[in-house]
């Protein structure tokens, strides 16, 4: 029987089942709500592991496909399917949502039920983003993610500038997405359908490809974010609640990279090659500029947010190198960044829960009183640099190998940003963890609680696993990536 049930459908539906059950619980019974959400998200994670177990790594086709007749008179069919790229993003999503719900156990005290509902809804939408095989539906879910994130940042964010951050996040992403909508509408009118596999094989003319690539780029560049459009990210990350930052950095940024891999590269290969210099330049600027800006920040979350910008610029370099090492490196880097950034935000969340401030000058010498926390923070800071043995090393190594084949100057200059990331990461670690305790500000300290320990430990384990045994992850994506690149080079 296990061969016939579709684990992808089960994974998609299970957050909704949790959501409907949650609607029935009275909101005064906060503990019951939290437990129900936790169980539902754990069940979703286990079901998504089923997807991995049953995934056939030597098949270049989409697996676990299911087509539903949604709007057949206009040729819109609801198709879902998994290939190597989307597999790991779905796993990342389901894993991180569990951590988000655990993180908010103590810190969210008002509107708890609405908070949990937003997260379950967000989980459902994110799983759908990564599994639909239809351009219109992808756009639908891509934009629908804005609604719960807007509410999460605006209602449960930290006090100071949360409304402004929520606005910026929403309007920036909306304008990019609306430009993509024009491209989508044009494609639909010219091709007659928005089904992914048909679109991959449709021959757009060169001018069409260039204009459509630009329309899609507007949306994905804001999401990733690439440098001129990155301003929403530090604000949104700094003002969001801890779990909001975790899911934002962990999964939402990857939607942009996934969009590039799934749509821009296969559908517009000529335009991709045409615009590669532009993307390389922007990524290089992002890597250097964001790394340097990080050195000036005083807000802990903003430091990690800017380092996210720098890491994601590596990802775009990897995607646009258009060779196997580059693309696989970008996927591994996206996954590893999802884990590492989430871990760093969780660490900052630990501090914020205790002291309600994220300003750097209040923290110092924490190793003397919070040794476990400092061990975690040290490990994750080294992961941020790309230290060998961690997953981000694998990702960055593969990306640099890929870009070396593409453009040697770019490789040398972007490798310089690794040094800069070492600069800000270790400096941050030193300022927080070592040195003298700032006893004029804080006098009471408590190390990581059991809940926080259990949140941080799986991340450490996963990063080490990905760093020391990357083949477990890379084996699944070989076929998909080589199929993608062969499709691009044939067109």
């Amino acid at each position, binding site marked *: 029987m296990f061969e016939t049930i579709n684990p992808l459908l089960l994974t998609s539906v299970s957050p909704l089942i949790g959501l409907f059950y949650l609607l029935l619980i009275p909101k005064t019974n906060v503990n019951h709500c939290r437990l129900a959400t936790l169980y539902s998200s754990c069940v979703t994670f286990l079901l998504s592991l089923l997807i991995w177990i049953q995934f056939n790594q030597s098949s270049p086709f989409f697996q676990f496909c299911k087509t539903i007749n949604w*709007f057949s008179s206009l040729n819109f069919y609801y198709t879902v399917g998994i290939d190597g790229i989307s597999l790991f993003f779905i796993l990342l999503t389901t894993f991180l949502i569990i951590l988000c719900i655990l993180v908010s156990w103590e810190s969210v005290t008002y509107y708890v039920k609405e908070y949990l509902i937003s997260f379950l809804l967000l989980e459902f939408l994110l799983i759908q983003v990564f599994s639909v095989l239809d351009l219109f539906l992808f756009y639908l879910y891509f*934009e629908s993610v804005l609604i719960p994130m807007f509410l999460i940042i605006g209602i449960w964010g930290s006090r100071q500038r949360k409304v402004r951050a929520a606005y910026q996040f929403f309007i920036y992403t909306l304008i990019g997405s609306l430009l993509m909508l024009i491209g989508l509408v044009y494609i639909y009118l010219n091709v007659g359908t928005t089904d992914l596999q048909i679109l991959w094989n449709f021959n757009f003319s060169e001018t069409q490809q260039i204009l459509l690539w630009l329309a899609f780029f507007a949306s994905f560049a804001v999401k990733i974010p690439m440098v001129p459009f990155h301003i929403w990210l530090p604000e949104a990350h700094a003002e969001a609640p801890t779990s909001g930052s975790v899911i934002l950095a962990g999964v939402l940024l990857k939607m942009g990279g996934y969009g590039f891999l799934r749509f821009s590269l296969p559908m517009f290969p000529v335009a991709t090659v045409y615009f590669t210099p532009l993307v390389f330049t922007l990524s290089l600027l992002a890597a250097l500029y964001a790394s340097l800006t990080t050195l000036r920040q005083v807000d802990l979350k903003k430091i990690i947010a800017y380092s996210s910008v720098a890491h994601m610029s590596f990802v775009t370099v990897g995607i646009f190198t258009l060779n196997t090492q580059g693309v696989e490196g970008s996927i591994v880097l996206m996954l590893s960044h999802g884990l590492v950034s989430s871990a760093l935000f969780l660490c900052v969340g630990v501090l914020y829960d205790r002291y309600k401030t994220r300003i750097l000058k209040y923290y110092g010498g924490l190793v003397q009183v919070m040794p476990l926390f400092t061990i975690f923070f040290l490990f994750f800071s080294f992961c941020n640099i790309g230290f060998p043995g961690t997953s981000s090393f694998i990702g960055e190594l593969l990306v640099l190998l890929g870009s070396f084949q593409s453009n040697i100057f770019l490789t040398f200059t972007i490798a310089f940003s690794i040094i800069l990331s070492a600069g800000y990461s270790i400096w941050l670690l030193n300022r927080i963890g070592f040195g003298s305790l700032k006893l004029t500000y804080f006098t009471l300290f408590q190390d990581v609680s059991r809940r926080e320990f259990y949140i941080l430990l799986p991340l450490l384990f996963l990063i080490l696993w990905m760093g020391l045994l990357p083949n477990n992850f890379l084996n699944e994506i070989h076929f998909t990536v080589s199929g993608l690149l062969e499709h691009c080079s044939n067109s």
Partner: protein
Amino acid sequence: MTNFTFDIYFTLPEIYLVISIFVLLLFGVLASGSAFLGYPLLSKVVGLISVQVLTFTFLILIYFPYSNFTSWNFFLTSDFFVLCSKLIIVGSSIIWTYFSIVYVVNEKINSFEYWILILLAVLALLCILQTYDLLTLYLLIEFQSLSFYVLASFKRSSEFSTEAGLKYFVLGAFASAFLLFGSSLLYGFTGLTNFNDFHIFFTGFLTEPIPFMSGTFLGLVFILAALFFKLSVSPFHMWAPDVYEGSPTSTTAFFTIFPKLAIITLLLRIFLISFHDLFSTWKNLFLLGSFLSLLFGSLGALAQNKWKRFLAYSSINHIGFILIGFLPGETFGITSIVIYLFIYIVTSFAIFSFLYTVRLYEYPQWSQIRYLDEVLGLSKTNPLLAVSLTVILFSMAGIPPLSGFFAKVFVLLAGVRSSTYGLVLIAIIMSSISCFYYIRIIQLAYFSKVQRWPILQPVDKSTSLVLGISFFFISLLFVDIELFYTPIKRMALSFTL
């Protein structure tokens, strides 16, 4: 071939409506002036009876669905589109009357003539759907406008309302004069008044020139100006915010929901049937109207802090989107217009039922919400209302997966099909600007700190029913759009036959 035999059958719904209006009026006058009965206040009674009258009209339309006829010597026409539009208008008016009774009673608008005027306006709108001649056009537009003028100024105790009615009357009379002038120009240059005759006359325009072309076109521009005024399309939209704000809220809801469908049908008939071959010349007029409406609708709403003015500018914005659907000049455009109108009607019902329900207590009475800021703290005082407001506003902003998004996608599809990429780009930019002010209200309801907590009246049954059903529709349209798309496509196809 003028055969009047079946005309009474064809116009049975309208005749029933006229007779019942007269009976109701007689009843109202006699009963409320009777000393024996104690001079009763008949407002609620006549309101409920008018719901019943409209229900019977709806049933007549369902049981005797005559379409594909012309009646009264080619003055009125009907086809499947008209039939469905009549069903939509009568159905919407049933819902509107049902949930406005409570509002009217609360605001103490005690004259029963309100409902008589509403019924007359509905009658006028039903007949406007069917016009087939320039004379009928003018008569019915005047009929509708006159009922609207009185409805706008109905609340005699409020000088705001009187001012609104007067403004509407003066400007509306001016627009009707334009209409008459345009019709006379058209008649003068072509000698025809019937739309069918125009259709035959202007066919083949592309292959052989028509004498007095510029004069005909001038007449057409004047008629279009008048109809744009009625629709509150820029640059003729100036009356809309003031009139919408001054009228009692139930009348504002009526103005927002009903005339749009009727006058858009009229525009479709004039421009896509009669003057279809002049497409390349009138396309630019709709382009200009749409562009200015989008611009002024979005930018105007940014500066508003009162609910009804805000909704007026928002409806100007929506009309701008609807006019994009005229540009392809083919079935797909018509389909997108009707879908957008349908979703717009449901969203308007939702937002106006929200406006009716939220009443704040300032000693000694409950007064309705007037300023946007009065939504402050709604998430704590009435969380269910706050959630429904959020969903309605996100739908108006066009965020997927709510129904407003699908409306906008269809209209943008029509725009891209007609290759007017500049206008589509402007529509998108204005859509994101309008998104900002819709979100601002959600921010007020959810995010802001409240200094003075408003005391809200509990929502009453009829309004909550309408709010609930429209909320359900808005949030769940994406599950099965086909259910609405197929009949609307069938409606639009009747323009090609």
